[in-house]
């Protein structure tokens, strides 16, 4: 290295903190930008229908199965969350039970439950975000639509995506829930650099101890744009229980509208 080059290099080093603060992203900005990009790439999916099955396993290896259908509607306004109806087919004693959710960003969601034996629609409290969803290792808050503004983000590092996608590079982003009554202090997500889809998420409980790990597998792209996972493996490290949630093929733009997600429609859902 010549003398002049050395001086130049020193000069660059000297002003680099100034450059960083003026032009480079902070880890917070970078984390949020990644979430925004994931969201942007998914805009316009409209509405969808999918058949799901859940296998619940306890620490002794005993398993039980749930079959359900999920119908979702994208609400384009940034300040309003998406809407969904979940209908249960199995186990048989809860067949026909349906769950309607109008997701909010930070306010409590609006939720109704339809009980077919009584033909009764009940408005229920949505405070129960961290409770188990039908006895599984998924909490309600793990399954609702992932609105960007529900979290604060911090980019941590870049690294290999790990077991869910060993050949891919990921952003590792920490996110902290801003909505009330979350069961988590934070989540750490591995977001694929190529398609901006999450491959793995770690959930930390209220004592900041690692509670669960979620692997999102078998991604497929629909309509040339929208990526959807077809297998989610959630493992609870504290109880040894796990739940596998699998999705059959999605149908997009099936013609659902706001009216199909009204409370009074719930008792007509089949």
């Amino acid at each position, binding site marked *: 290295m010549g003398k002049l080059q050395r001086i130049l290099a020193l000069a660059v080093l000297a002003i680099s903190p100034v450059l960083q603060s003026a032009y480079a992203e902070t880890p917070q900005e970078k984390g949020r930008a990644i979430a925004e990009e994931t969201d942007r790439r998914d805009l316009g999916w409209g509405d969808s229908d999918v058949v799901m099955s859940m296998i*619940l396993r*306890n620490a002794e290896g005993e398993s*039980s*199965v749930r079959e359900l259908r999920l119908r979702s509607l994208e609400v384009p306004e940034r300040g309003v969350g998406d809407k969904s109806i979940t209908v249960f087919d*199995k*186990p*048989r*004693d*809860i*067949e026909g039970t349906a769950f309607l959710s109008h997701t909010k960003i930070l306010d*409590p969601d*609006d939720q109704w439950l339809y009980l077919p034996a*009584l*033909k*009764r*629609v*009940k*408005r*229920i*409290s949505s*405070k*129960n975000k*961290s*409770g*188990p969803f*039908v*006895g599984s290792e998924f909490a309600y808050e793990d399954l609702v639509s992932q609105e960007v503004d529900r979290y604060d983000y911090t980019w941590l590092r870049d690294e290999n995506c790990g077991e869910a996608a060993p050949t891919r590079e990921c952003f590792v982003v920490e996110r902290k829930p801003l909505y009330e*009554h979350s*069961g988590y202090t934070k989540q750490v997500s591995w977001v694929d650099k190529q398609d901006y889809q999450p491959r793995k998420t770690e959930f930390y409980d209220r004592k900041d101890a690692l509670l669960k790990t979620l692997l999102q597998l078998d991604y497929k792209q629909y309509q040339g744009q929208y990526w959807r996972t077809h297998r989610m493996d959630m493992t609870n490290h504290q109880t040894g229980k796990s739940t596998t949630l699998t999705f*059959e*093929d999605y*149908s*997009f*733009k*099936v*013609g659902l509208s706001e*009216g199909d997600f*009204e*409370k*009074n*429609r719930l008792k*007509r859902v*089949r």
Partner: protein
Amino acid sequence: MISGVRIAAAGLCLAAGALPALAKEPNIETSLELGMELRLFPNDPAFGLQRDRAVSPSFYLEPEISADWNGGDDRLTLVPFARVDRDDDSRTHVDLREANWLHIGDGYDLVIGADKVFWGVTESRHLVDIVNQSDGVEDVDLEDKLGQPMVQLAVPSDLGTFSLFVMPYFRERTFPDADARLSGGVRVDDDAQYDSDAEEFHPDLAVRWSQVIGDFDVGLSHFHGTSREPRLLALDPANPSNLTPYYDQIDQTGLDLQYTTDAWLWKLEAIGRGGHGDYFPAAVAGFEYTLFGVRGSDMDLGFLAEYQYDGRDEDSSAPGTLANNDTFIGTRLTFNDVDDTSLLAGAVVDNEDGSTLLSLEAERRIGDDWKVEAVARFFLNADSENGLKALERDDFVSLTLIRYF
């Protein structure tokens, strides 16, 4: 306009193309629920004619057959029900819980045939719920309903859902056999009398509006027709325990309201009824509060309290009620486990004479296709003037094993 039609048609084609290949129409589904029940009566009966059996077995069958087409917008549903009870000839009965055609049209839903409709929000008493007759032999809580023949039109709109019900045929309430438990020692005549000359063919009408306004769920309804509650008249001078049900023509306006905030559900049901003596109001108001994830577990613990008021005349011009000035307190434990285990315990206490109905309801699934239910009802501290007196020796525990096919 034309382009709109084209877009719609293109949309339909896309939607049809997107349907999974397995959607063959009509889509027919069948299922069967089979229940085996044992009712245990620890006390001897109060009335001489009642059979003294400590254990009463029964079983029921409830098949369901449905067929849908037009992507689910047309649906036929058939749900017959039958129970065979060893010790109560009236409880051995059949019913068509549902036998209807549902059509979901453009901006309306239409149901023609026998159906079940529930209105209301409270837990301890269902004041507003009036469309279906109670199947009184099933349980003393009157929550089991007989299928009601009707034409039901519902029109959803931005201003709420407006519904119209025309009910051309009336169903009489079922009562336990006189020599069975829980009969109160009376024989209720099969041959009912009616206020209307058209008797059970009087066309009953109801309208309802319901809407969600932020955290409030509100419903307003009006019913004009045959009262689902009969007056029980002692018309047989030779035997005053032979009673004849008499069904009056009534007008009932109802309001149901729930305010949901945080872990609180605040509930109100209120009615005004004309046709049973003087026009009277009645109401149930209270709350349900839930502690989610008690002590770091997955369990939810709920606390319920409701006040029941009923302003009806306490002479023979209106059917009797237990809920004239009573308080319900209860607790609900939901385990949120794999087997959906839950427990509801509650007591309705008469504020004037202390007569108490204590109830316990528990259920859990076993494996994928079985379920057990336990119900216990105890009639405590029954005052001689209270309607509970007639049941005070009929405390029971019911255990039901259900198999789903």
